[in-house]
Structures are given as structure tokens and as C-alpha cells.
């Protein structure tokens, strides 16, 4: 089945004052695809995400989402961060957190929130404080919030960071399930090449400029990884 491009990144360059972080990055993501962005720390992955969601304005080039500027269609994008950035001891419940984003319909009602939580495998958790959740549970709450608001694009910033192997498997299985059932386009920033190889349809290798772009089996090669991460990274090649 032919799919339409939902995200187009064209010759994107971004710099903080004189420090260039992204240089001429171009790729296309089709609707319903899972795409992974890999690269070493400081390679511009987070800056790229912030340009995709329209939080940053490109210095050169453009990002187009569903034919429009990201700022105009940002309500269709869900963002799942690595962790809760505020203090973990803030007394806010899962229900209160999920109800922050109000919709035109009644999707913030307790019934709908419980349904979204059950979809991600969480039960009887709505009155628990956000700070009491494990890393994996928090990630699933964030995914449930995105489901609640039926986001068309989901962005995961290192979703399994600080989570054990079982938790990691659960998160990635969930991402795959949502992608298949709801045709949600997913962008995953990850350092784990085995996971990228298993779940992503396309991979962007980023180190300020785009080193490579393509299917995992063609992109995750010792040569590309050496260029991306430096000497020795080829040891992590999954084949």
C-alpha cells in the first residue's frame, strides 16, 4: 500500500549563535512508519526533534508536517520524554497529569483516561502520584496521554533509558502495537542499535550532518557506525 509523506525535512540547518548543530539534514517519513534517529551524544538529535515539533525555527531549510508548518499542526504530535523533568516528589496524580491537556470533547474524563491507561497495560494507577512510578510506568503514562488525544505522530526521546530489559521490551512492543493498530507515525531517538534494527523501518544516522539514511539492514554497517561513533563502534553491529 502506498503511503504519503507526513514529515519532510528539507536541507535543515540549525545553529546556536555561531555554533552549527545541524547541517543540511534531509529525509522524509511516510505516514505510519517507525523511524529511528541514532547518533552520539551532542550530535544534534534533540535539536532535530525540537525543529520537527516547531519548538525551534530552522536557520536554513524547512520542516513540513502534513503539508504545513509544524507550529500549525503541533496538536497532532505527541512527545514522550526520557523522564519527568520536574521534581519526582511533586504531589500530582496520574489522573491530574493526564487531564492537563483539555480537549474539545470529553476525552479528559476519568473513564477515558482509565481506558487509555488500560491500553498501555496500566491498571488502578490513576490515583498514584507521578513521582511514585517507575521509569517504564512513566513512559507508558506518557504514551497513554498521547493515545487519549489521538496524536498522529509520536516522538520518543530515548524511551528505554534507565529501564530494565523487561521494561524496554514492553515499551517497544507497545510502540509497535500502536503503530500497527492506529497507524501512528513514530520517531524514536535511541542509542540501542539492536532495538533500532528490530523495530525501525528507517534509520537516520546523525552527527550534526546526516551520515546515512535508509533501512536498518543497509544503514547499520560497521563502516557507517565507525563514521558515526568513531573507532570500535562496529563491535555493536547486530548481525
Amino acid at each position, binding site marked *: 500500500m502506498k503511503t504519503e509523506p507526513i514529515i519532510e525535512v528539507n536541507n535543515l540547518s540549525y545553529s546556536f549563535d555561531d555554533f552549527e548543530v545541524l547541517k543540511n539534514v534531509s529525509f522524509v517519513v511516510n505516514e505510519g512508519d517507525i523511524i529511528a534517529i541514532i547518533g552520539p551524544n551532542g550530535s544534534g538529535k534533540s535539536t532535530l526533534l525540537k525543529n520537527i515539533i516547531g519548538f525551534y525555527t530552522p536557520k536554513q531549510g524547512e520542516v513540513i508536517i502534513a503539508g504545513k508548518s509544524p507550529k500549525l499542526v503541533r496538536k497532532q504530535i505527541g512527545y514522550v520524554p526520557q523522564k519527568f523533568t520536574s521534581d519526582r516528589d511533586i504531589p500530582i496524580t496520574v489522573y491530574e497529569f493526564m487531564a*492537563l491537556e483539555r480537549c474539545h470533547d470529553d476525552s479528559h474524563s476519568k473513564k477515558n483516561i482509565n481506558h487509555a491507561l488500560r491500553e498501555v497495560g496500566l491498571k488502578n494507577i490513576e490515583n498514584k502520584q507521578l513521582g511514585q512510578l517507575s521509569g517504564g510506568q512513566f513512559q507508558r503514562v506518557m504514551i497513554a496521554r498521547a493515545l487519549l488525544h489521538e496524536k498522529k505522530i509520536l516522538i520518543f526521546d530515548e524511551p528505554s533509558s534507565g529501564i530494565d530489559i523487561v521494561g524496554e521490551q514492553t515499551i517497544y512492543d507497545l510502540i509497535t502495537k500502536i503503530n500497527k493498530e492506529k497507524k501512528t507515525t513514530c520517531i524514536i531517538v535511541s542509542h540501542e542499535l539492536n532495538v533500532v534494527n528490530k523495530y525501525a523501518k528507517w534509520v537516520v544516522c546523525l552527527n550534526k550532518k546526516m551520515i546515512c539514511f535508509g533501512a536498518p539492514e543497509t544503514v547499520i554497517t560497521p563502516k557507517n557506525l565507525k563514521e558515526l561513533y568513531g573507532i570500535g563502534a562496529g563491535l555493536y553491529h547486530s548481525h
Partner: protein
Amino acid sequence: MPEFLQYPFMIRALVAGGFISILLGWLGTFIIIRKMSFIGDGIAHASLAGIAIALLLGWATIPTAILWSILIASFIYFLEKKTKISGDMAIAIMFTTGMAIGVILLHFYQGYQPELISYLFGNILTINSFDLFSIIIAAIIILSCLLIFYRRLLFTTLDPTGAYLSGLNPWVYDLVLYIITAVTIILSIKLVGIILVSALLVTPSALGKIFASSFKNFTFITIIFSLIIVISGLIISYYLDLPSGATIILTGTTLFGLSYLGKYLFSK
């Protein structure tokens, strides 16, 4: 009727204290999450320049200081968001500059300066009917803003990226929070003083965090504690003939210490 209610200055102080404590308690819940407690100190100290301008020109101090504080809060916001200067640095620059301008201007103020000490440490005797009127009007406006923007302020505080993606503009709500915090601090200066006011932004929230199980009851408990601290502090200061601002702050600290100890002992 208790003896202290026979004095108009005490009634004015209690009414002003009631409004101010609700505002400080509610705002404190946002300030403590954003780790912005330094902004209370910064704006309070910087406001000395606004007070000095009002005294020199013979203008009403609270309205002049409110306008000055809005200017300072907006400038801190601009420095923080539009330059490489961090929030702490921006506040520290405005904190010291405002104090320095205030001291220089007051140097030119002719005659006795009894009010300066009142502004530094608070003096409920200086709250006149016009001040009380200004406090009530400003408090009603700020409380209305908090009621209208509550969910949006909370969303942008807890999850700025999520708030942006939901269609909100977090920068606008950051500025709204800075401005209403600045105005609230000015309203509180005659009650507790420039030096002590930031404690009332933090202590009730710190108490609320000890007992709350959700954000809704965190806000409610914090406001209740804020009211208890201010009203009981005022009454204690009346009966013991102590400075009101310092007594209010020490009442809060004592309550916090006892609550923390109580929770520690009961949870064992």
C-alpha cells in the same frame, strides 16, 4: 470580641493578610515546582527602587511599586529568554541594581526616613485604608487570573513541551506568572517586608508537600497553611508586642519544623 479586633490597624492588617496569604500560598505551589524561589527575593529587593521613586515624587507607594515590579519582572523574563543569561543571573543583576538605585534615590530624599525600615521588615501600622483598597483590588484581579489560567499555568509549569504541543504558548504563561508573582510580592511588602517576603512564597508550599497526595489538595493545603501562618503570626505579634513580619515568618518556620518532625515520627 478579641481585644485586637478593636483596633482598625489590626483589622486592616488581618484583611490584607488574608488576601495576601491566599495569593502567596497559591503562587508558591508554582514557584516551588519551577524552583523559582529566588525570584521572590529578587523582585522584592529590586522593588526598593520603585518605593524610593514613589517617596521622592510623593506618589502612592504600592501602585508605583507595582508598576516598577512589572517592569522588573518583564526585564528578568526578557534577559532569561532572549539572552544567554540564566534565570539566576538575571534575577541577581536586577536584585542588586534595584537595591542600589533605591539606596541612591533615598539618599536624595530630604528629612526623616521612618518608612524605609517599614518596607525592609514590614510594619502593619503603615497599612492605611488606601493600601488596603489597593491590596484587595489587586488581589481580586490576580485571583481571577489564577482561576482562569490555573490549568494552563500548571501544564506549562509541569510539562512545557507537552503544553506547547497541545497548542499553548508556554512563554506567554511564564510571563503571566512572573508578573503576577511580582505584583503579589509588592502587595506583601508592608506586611512582612522586602527582606522576608520570599519566605511566605516557599514555607506554605513546603508544608503542603508534606501532607498532600494530589495537586488539588496540595494547592488547598498550602493556601490553608498560608492563611494560618499569616493570621496566627499577626495575632502572636500583637499579644507579644513583636515585629509582625518576623513573627509571621518564624510562625511558618515553627509550623514547618513541627510538621516535618511529626511526619518523620509517625511514619517510623
